[in-house]
């Protein structure tokens, strides 16, 4: 009697081995993927928080003016870029022609990772609804958003 292994037997054993290897490979791959994304998510959250803090400071700067001013210096509905000049110490909030702006301070050296940010503002009188959105240049993670409502609590009245 000739004994041996049939083709289905070989196929099934190869399938089982392949599945086991794929599972192992996937585990390792997911681990590295999550690792890289944890760092990116930290940067996104931080970028949004920084943008919101700059907006609060932008509003608070009005207190230093010697004459009454609009609480958001005439900023109305639109998409804006926010940045801080380290040389002049001025917070710049400019209308953005493109949707997102570079957050250059977050450039991660050799890896080339870049964080982009945009500020969307809607105003209703003395209340401003603001959304800061950050994302990576290579869109891997979903956009991260942070909302804030700023009001004119300033004792000066609008001009």
């Amino acid at each position, binding site marked *: 009697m000739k004994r041996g292994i049939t083709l289905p037997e070989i196929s099934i054993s190869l399938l089982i081995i392949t599945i086991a290897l794929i599972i192992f490979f996937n585990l390792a791959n997911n681990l590295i993927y999550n690792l890289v994304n944890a760092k990116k998510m930290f940067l996104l959250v931080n970028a949004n928080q*920084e943008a919101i803090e700059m907006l609060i400071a932008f509003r608070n700067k009005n207190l230093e003016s010697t004459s009454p001013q609009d609480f958001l210096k005439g900023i109305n509905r639109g998409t804006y870029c926010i940045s801080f000049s380290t040389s*002049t110490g001025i917070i710049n909030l400019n209308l953005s022609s493109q949707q997102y702006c570079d957050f250059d*301070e977050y450039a991660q050296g050799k890896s080339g990772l870049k964080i982009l940010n945009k500020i969307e503002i809607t105003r209703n009188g003395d209340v401003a609804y603001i959304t800061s959105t950050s994302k990576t240049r290579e869109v891997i993670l979903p956009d991260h958003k942070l909302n804030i409502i700023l009001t004119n609590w300033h004792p000066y009245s609008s001009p």
Partner: protein
Amino acid sequence: MKKGFTLLEISLVILLAGLLMIVVSNFYLGIIKALIIADVFQNALENVKMGSEKIFRITKYGWDFKVTSTQISFYDRNCDYRYLLSFRNNNLILEKEDVKGNLIESEEIFDPQIIKVKDFRIYKDKPLTTETFFYFQYAPKIIIYFYDLELKTKIGTSSLIFEQGVAPLNSVQNISLCSL
């Protein structure tokens, strides 16, 4: 009827099993290595979050800021202590002094075993007026911390560069609580 296996068959089976073991163990060791690296990296990232969150929190409620490019000092929310945060020995050192200037405690913000601070800079806005009658006229409205960190893992390092903006809450007050 011929029964059993030949030497060639057994050798082939052992060879195949050996090859399979090598491939599988390589994958397994790779996963273990990745797990160890992930654990160290995760710890380092958590340490960065904790450290930067602490700096954010104490700055947010601070009073009377004195800022240079690499160090900042300010009073705590109740004006009981003065904090001094400085960049020294590849780490950030937070010192806490009482109102008489006696050092109460000194701590490293980041764990030096897993994080190296390569660069740290502090920026602040400039007041729009030269008047200093009210606290809000000269208090900084925004303080920016720039971090250039190196996260150490067992197989190498990973760079982490970011900024942290803080708009101090008390900078809109008329009078500094600490000057009363």
